[in-house]
């Protein structure tokens, strides 16, 4: 029997000196779900993503992805297993065109790149995947623009597009809507909705409207500790969450 759990985090622990950024985190993400991770600033959300993606190693605990222990696996190997991430601070290749940014993401999954002779931009094999990804993230018409010259919203779309290009099993989106205008935020919500199903998503976001619209389940993180996990309905009625986080301003 195939298990329905894609990512299993067990007792993950990470501290920086006396600060416990992740304190005994247990987390399960099911196949096909959108799992939102919310919490006030400094709750350790990005630190958790860093450890899941392999940019940072935990002090203790384990991470299991698709039935495989990946706790100590380097970042690039996790990516090839189907674990993609986007960054909170836009992380793209500024001097390359939007298309070339996506092309790099696609190329990473097409075997090694020790190909020295043929021009990369004439590779027909990559082209269909690149076009699909450009269309998905809404940059098909802006494909030849150098990434540095894209608008902030477009950069965020490109950021997500690169993570999406190869249909990852798990996509970790670190505040995809940060700094976006309302129009772009709607576009991003649509984008996330459209990929739901084939890809599980771990969504870190401050836009509560988007989170409660999109998420199947929500985990609330406060000071590195998960205080509740449940459906949006359950979370919005959870007293602990209300007092610790949601209701902070209202009460």
């Amino acid at each position, binding site marked *: 029997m195939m298990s329905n759990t894609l990512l299993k985090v067990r007792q993950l622990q990470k501290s920086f000196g006396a600060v416990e950024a992740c304190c005994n985190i247990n987390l399960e993400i099911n196949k096909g779900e959108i799992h939102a991770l919310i919490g006030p600033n400094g709750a350790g959300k990005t630190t958790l993503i860093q450890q899941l993606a*392999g*940019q940072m190693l935990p002090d203790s605990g384990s991470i299991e992805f698709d039935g495989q222990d990946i706790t100590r696996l380097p970042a690039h*190997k996790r990516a090839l297993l189907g674990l993609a991430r986007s960054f909170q601070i836009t992380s*793209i*290749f500024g001097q390359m065109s939007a298309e070339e940014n996506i092309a790099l993401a696609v190329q990473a999954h097409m075997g090694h*790149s*020790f190909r020295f002779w043929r021009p990369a931009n004439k590779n027909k094999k990559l082209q269909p995947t690149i076009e699909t990804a450009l269309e998905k993230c809404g940059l098909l018409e802006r494909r030849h623009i150098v990434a540095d010259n894209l608008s902030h919203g477009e950069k965020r779309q490109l950021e997500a597009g*690169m993570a999406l290009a190869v249909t990852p099993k798990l996509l970790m989106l670190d505040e995809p809507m940060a700094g976006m205008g309302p129009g772009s935020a709607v576009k991003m919500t649509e984008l996330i909705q459209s990929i739901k199903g084939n890809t599980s998503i771990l969504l870190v976001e401050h836009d509560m409207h988007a989170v409660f619209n999109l998420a199947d389940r929500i985990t609330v993180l406060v000071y590195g500790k998960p205080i509740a996990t449940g459906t949006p309905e359950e979370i919005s009625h959870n007293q602990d969450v209300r007092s610790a986080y949601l209701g902070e301003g209202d009460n």
Partner: protein
Amino acid sequence: MRFIKNRRTLITGASFLFFLLLPLIASALGDAYLVTLFTRILIYALAAVSLDLILGYGGMNSLGHTAFFGTGAYVVGILAFHIQEETLFLSWPIELSGSSNAILVWLLAVLFSAFMSGLIGALSLRTTGIQFIMITLAFAQMLYYLFVSLEAYGGDDGISLWARNKLPIFDTADDTSFYYLCLGFLVIFVFLSYRLVHSHFGRVIRGAKQNLQRMQSLGFPIYRYQLVCFIIAGAGAGLAGALMANQSEFVSPGLLHWTHSGEMMIMVLLGGMGTLIGPILGATALLLLEEFLSVYTEHWMAFLGPFLIIVVLFAKRGLYGLLTGKEVNDE
């Protein structure tokens, strides 16, 4: 866009034509020294283009590139030394003598430089940023002192070659022939580099320069790609070194001194980082300025310095950027 592209083609074509016709110009002017000078320029251009592969395209700021240049030169020097002294290079476990066969010697120079850059690169590429600069510099200086202390090969004084390496048919002793040989090597190397930077491999290398973390999170084991790029650049520098040893018929530890690496870096910066024609322009400009300023004053560096600062400050892509217009991105 079209205009820029045309200007690029124009500059590339004009430089090629100039180098092609230079020996004729020199003989028309009756100045044979020009050929010698421009042979040096071509050789340094080759070294600078190879450095730009790691510096401009790969974002690996190596201050030890001369280690591979020097290695290539010393392979030529040491093998020639054993011919001249009629001694064996190696007597155990197999007997190896020196050689003056250009094909063999230059191939060995390239291979050995590649090997050295593999060794140095494998260790240095574990670091980034300022540490990388320092560690490559340290390795180059280690090699420098190694050759200084090798009394058997002349130590500080280096090795004088009695003649250039020999090629079948082609007369390397003739300065004009040797000039065209160097030009041929430069053209071939630039063409190979052009294919390289536009290939899948080149895209990965350029990506690593712009955003290392993102490359890893996309799934690239970036260390391997950088190392291979470092080795290719080292091999190119090795070839340049071997040619240099032949051109001047002399090798000394001075070739490996770190200031020499700095000079190559200046050629790249001056000409335009991240372009293939730029380093050639840079090498030409720097060596010509050096040549002509030093006629007037021994403090020529005092004039060169400000000039360099102005170019680097005001031209985004050095001389090449100036000539082609401002909007030049990575090609």
